Structures are given as C-alpha cells and as structure tokens.
C-alpha cells in the first residue's frame, strides 16, 4: 500500500496530481458494487486523522464545529484535514471514475501530468 503523504508537511498543503476532467458521476453508479468497493478502499489509503475528519464531516454530514468538538481539535485543524483528505481522495479515485464510472484504474499510482 503506497503512502500518499510521503514528504509532505502536515500543514494541509497539497498539490493535486490529476487534472483530467471528472464529469459528474451518475447517482446510479453507486448501485454498482465495484464503485462502492473503490470508495471504501480509497478511505483506507488515508491516514487515520484525515479519514476521521472526512468521515465525520462528509459521510456523517456533521458541521465543521461538531467535527472539531468530537475530535477535540480546532475548526482550523478540521478544515486543514478536510482539505487534504478531499484532495487525496479525488486523486485516488479520479483516474478510474472519470471515465464513465469505470474503476479498473482507480488504484493505479497517480500520475503527474507535468512529469
């Protein structure tokens, strides 16, 4: 399992690695088990503190303040973790999901277009 955070500071800065267009995924895609599997698997690739903030805020739909209270951190820290978590998940999932909901490439190491 590769780490997505090697060499990065914990200040929330994150450089997106995938710039291809990702058109809206039809809601029906979630009926497909491989899409749901890809979403669950992608979460495991995040470090625990990013995963927690993301699950509370974006899966359980708590507010930033509620998330901060539960985790015992500041609102600013929640926002920092959310930023990293969301952009990392986007990078993990984009290569597979951008093309009509296919996930066959979802866990291929992300590429940097400028390299």
């Amino acid at each position, binding site marked *: 399992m590769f780490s997505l955070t090697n060499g990065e500071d914990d200040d*929330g*800065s*994150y*450089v*997106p690695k*995938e*710039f*291809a*267009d*990702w*058109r*809206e*995924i039809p*809601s029906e895609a*979630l*009926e497909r*088990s*491989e899409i*749901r*599997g*890809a*979403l*669950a*698997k992608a*979460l*495991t690739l995040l470090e*625990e503190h990013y*995963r*927690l903030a*993301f*699950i*509370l805020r*974006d*899966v*359980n*739909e708590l507010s*930033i303040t509620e998330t901060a209270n*539960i*985790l*015992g951190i500041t609102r600013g820290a929640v*926002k920092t973790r*959310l*930023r990293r978590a*969301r*952009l990392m*998940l*986007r990078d993990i*999932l*984009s290569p597979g*999901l*951008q093309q009509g909901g296919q*996930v*066959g490439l*979802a*866990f291929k190491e992300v590429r940097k277009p400028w390299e």
Partner: protein
Amino acid sequence: MGITCEEVWRDISDYVDDELDPKQRTALEEHFAECRHCAAVLEGTCNVIRLYRDERALAPPKGFHDRLHERLDQRLSQGSEERIHPSRRAILAWALTAAAAVPLGFALFSARRIILPRLEHQSPSGSPDSPAVMGLVAVSEDKDDKVFHIPSCRYVHGKPKFLPVEEAIRDGYSPCPVCIGKRKPEKKGVASPETIKTFKSGVNHS
C-alpha cells in the same frame, strides 16, 4: 488572473464548505473561469463529497448481516468453553489477518475487478463453522459501551475509532441495535435478538 493555482488549491476545500469571505470567493470563481485545471480539481472534489454523502456509499455489503449474525452465533457457542479447536483457530487467524489487511474490507465483498478480486473466494466464509465477516465498523474510543456500528451510524458516542468487524467481535463488542441489529436476518439458523443480547456476556471473558 488574480490568484495562483497554489492559492486556489489551498482554499478550494473551504470554498466548497462556503467558509471563505466574499472577496476570496470571487477571486476563486474568477480563477475557475479561466483555469481548466483548477476547475477540474473543483469538480472532482465536489464529486468526491457528493459520492460519499450518498448513504449507499459505505453501506454494508450484501450478505453482511447474515454473515455477522452467523459469526456472532458461532462465537457464542465457543465463548463459554474458552477454547477453539486448532483448525478453527487457524481459520480464525486467517480471517483476522485478512480483515486486518483490509481495514475497510467492504471492498472484499464488492470488488470484482480491482485489487482483491479473489480474496472473497479464498476466505473461509463458506465454511459452515467459521463464517468470516469482513468490514470496518465504528466504536466509541472514549466511551466503554462495547457497541459497534456501521461507519455512518449517528449513534457512535464521542470520538470514533474504526476497526475490522472481526476484531470488534473478538473484543466482545455487540452490534448497535439501530444500525445493525434492526435488520433481522431471515436466514435460518442465525442468531436471534436474544442470542445477540447474551452474546456480549458470553464472549467478554473469552
């Protein structure tokens, strides 16, 4: 273009949450109108959030409840004797290892074409005396209520912790009656609600 791409990436999450002041917001929107890369990042970020907010995204996979209740039943029958047959122990160890290797193992049930396409078939879940239950559940880290939930359940009190369901069962947790227990399995021979109720005391000391 007033701001750089780096500044946009720094603020994009706050933009989605509407946490920016109007001036910053306008600056980002002007940038998105001109920079297709950043517009793609915004689109993808919104897609990610929209997908995960759908209640189907992390719902337990098909057959989860049947396997869970079957596993609890099996655990109950073993719990009082505090011993596991060596072959069962080996199977259980294998199952736990597999579960630990894939913490959010819902993928195991559903992923047919991605990383772990065959693990489900290799798992001992088909064995009648050791139904493995894969998947990640949430427990309360600071409240010792010994209840586990599906990750999106609102009844996880306090700070949550996520662990493989097999580990939760082993540690004596019982399923949340709201998010897991309410789906009474129809399969013959699986645990009744009464059995699950007594499960906790049965395995706490095993």
